[in-house]
């Protein structure tokens, strides 16, 4: 049970929390505007057969230039297992580095590729049952691409997460399509529709999880964005009692730099 919850938090929270811009559940290669200097937080409710997990991460990125970004992510976690007492506390800390590798711009469009390195430090509380922290060092390297035009955006991410202390390594594969519902203008007043998939393949145990994702984003000004999304598992190779019913996310991003 304890390891399962840790795995749940890793898959549904830690690996997606670093996405700094549209789309909602997939990483972006754009390091500008709200994607560059925007503090991001969201409330995520992971409703499983045997527990409900609430995660509230806070991500603060900082651009070292137009092609390099560093950042830190902290998270508050509450786990409410069926038939057990709920536990709360601060989860693991993550540092990340993004480096742009390629950029090809055209009029009203851009194609970019970045490399992203995430390092998870096992700082989370582990003296509770279930544990809040993973008690595991995790290093993840991803390639993130995006083709963004004024009419739509297509994003993709492939990464590998190396873990320690008995947690399985996993391959991450995410894809998203973002479609603006209002005319694109500046200063922004945008309503974006997000759809995508978020996959995890746990290599040590040959187990696959794919979530179908949908969401809506409202960019109210140059410096603020609000978003909400729903994820539903379409493939989940875990025992019946441990399955995820759905994941709900409500979040905001505010430009601070």
């Amino acid at each position, binding site marked *: 049970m304890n390891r399962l919850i840790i795995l749940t938090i890793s898959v549904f929270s830690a690996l997606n929390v670093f996405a700094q811009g*549209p789309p909602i559940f997939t990483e972006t290669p754009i390091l500008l*505007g709200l994607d560059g200097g925007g503090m991001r937080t969201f409330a995520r409710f992971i409703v499983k057969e045997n527990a409900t997990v609430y995660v509230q991460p806070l991500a603060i990125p900082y651009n070292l230039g137009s092609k390099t970004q560093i950042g830190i992510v902290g998270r508050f976690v509450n786990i409410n297992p069926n038939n057990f007492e709920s536990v709360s506390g601060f989860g693991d800390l993550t540092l990340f580095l993004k480096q742009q590798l390629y950029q090809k*711009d055209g009029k*009203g469009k*851009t194609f970019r590729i970045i490399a992203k390195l995430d390092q998870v430090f096992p700082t989370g509380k582990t003296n509770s049952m279930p544990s809040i922290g993973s008690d595991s060092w995790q290093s993840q390297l991803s390639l993130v691409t995006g083709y963004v035009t004024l009419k739509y*955006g297509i994003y993709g991410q492939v990464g590998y997460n190396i873990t320690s202390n008995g947690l399985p390594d996993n391959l991450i594969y995410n894809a998203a399509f973002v479609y603006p519902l209002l005319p694109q203008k*500046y200063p*922004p007043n945008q309503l974006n529709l997000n759809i995508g998939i978020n996959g995890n393949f746990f290599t040590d145990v040959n187990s696959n999880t794919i979530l179908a994702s949908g969401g809506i984003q409202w960019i109210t000004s140059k410096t603020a964005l609000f978003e909400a999304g729903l994820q539903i598992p379409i493939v989940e190779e875990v025992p019946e009692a441990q399955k995820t019913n759905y994941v709900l996310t409500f979040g905001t991003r505010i430009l601070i730099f």
Partner: protein
Amino acid sequence: MRILLKTGIITLLTFATFILSTTNVNAQTKSETDKTYIKIEVDGLSCPFCAYGLEKKLKQAGSKDVLINLEEGEATMSVPKDQQPTEEELRKIVKVAGFTPKEITFSKTPFKIKQDEK
């Protein structure tokens, strides 16, 4: 006497209004001629939420009236003539903001542009 006083006040007010408006027009004309207008074609302006960095950087270059048009892929601005940045400086600013600069045009008169915000 009362009529004379009234006429005097009206004449004075008319004269004052004329002087003020002339001064204003002169000031405006002078202010406009003291400016350089710049239009920068920018590639990669594909999302409204990421254009803010460009606006911020161009304002740091001395302009208070940066306008960005996503549809046209353009940024326009004006700067005081004595603070006019060079083309090279402007290209560097656009690159640092994360975009690709294309043609840059300097003009003594304002550009006619379609604003996104309208």
